[in-house]
């Protein structure tokens, strides 16, 4: 079943290495919270801010999750050292949207999706269902932060080691005015492609309405 959604806001970010200008000091003024943010969390709060979204339901997706925190844990196990509690709490897939909720005191529902290359497709489906269920706007975010030491040993296809895409959508009775084509987004992790498809299709429309498959 297809339902039409109005795209209220959208944003993307892509950096070959570490994204240096994510405006963290303005977005997260409290240093004691900012100091714990993972790279994925920094990307997510930046994208949410770019979409003007601070309150409401969030669907977050990442194929690789919190790579640095996971690498820290594996590294500690490898050298037989105790695991850092910060790395432990930062290693879960919903770390980024959780920090977002702490930052904005957002008590709305958070859903986290991870399904390899189909991650952003599933985020779109889950977000669409969430928007239909609640009738309110929902923030959809997909991020990948794989910029860890030695990543070049296993990565040869993803140019943007830190990247993300965000959309805010709400169900509408208006006709769809945008055709979404499935494209190959070279340099981006494939887990972001389906949301990038929507973003690119909507960029040229002032008030974009897309039909999404539930």
């Amino acid at each position, binding site marked *: 079943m297809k339902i039409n959604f109005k795209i209220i806001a959208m944003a993307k970010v892509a950096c070959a290495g570490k994204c240096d200008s994510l405006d963290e000091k303005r977005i997260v003024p409290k240093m004691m919270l900012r*100091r714990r943010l993972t790279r994925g969390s920094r990307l997510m709060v930046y994208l949410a801010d770019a979409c003007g979204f601070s309150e409401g339901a969030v669907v977050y997706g990442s194929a690789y999750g919190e790579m640095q925190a996971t690498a820290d844990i594996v590294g500690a196990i490898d050298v037989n050292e105790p695991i850092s*509690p*910060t790395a432990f709490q930062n290693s879960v897939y919903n770390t980024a949207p959780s920090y977002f909720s702490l930052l904005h005191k957002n008590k709305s529902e958070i859903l986290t999706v991870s399904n390899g290359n189909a991650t952003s497709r599933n985020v779109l489906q889950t977000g669409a269902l969430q928007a239909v269920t609640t009738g309110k706007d929902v923030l959809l975010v997909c991020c990948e932060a794989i910029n860890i030491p030695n990543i070049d040993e296993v990565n040869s296809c993803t140019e943007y080691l830190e990247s993300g895409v965000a959309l805010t959508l709400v169900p509408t009775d208006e006709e769809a005015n945008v055709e979404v084509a499935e494209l190959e987004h070279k340099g981006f992790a494939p887990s972001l492609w389906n949301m990038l498809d929507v973003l690119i299709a909507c960029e040229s429309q002032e008030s974009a309405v897309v039909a999404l498959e539930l």
Partner: protein
Amino acid sequence: MITTNKLKTELIELFNLEGVHVDEIADDDHLFGDGLGLDSVDAIELTIFLDNEYGIVFSNISESETVFASIKTLQEYINKNESN
């Protein structure tokens, strides 16, 4: 022997206290609460740090509460008990 300034530098790096400089931290500043503002997760992180870097393992919780009172008490304890 570790100096208070060296310890402050290590704590700033350990806890990623961006924008905080050594000369802004007083020797008698509390580590938790109204001092540096560290929390319970940081307490575990600090315990692991002391073990890894100085070979210090606390035998009971109440001992660590006293040691973690301030920069000065921590520095004195490290200098008295380090084994690495």
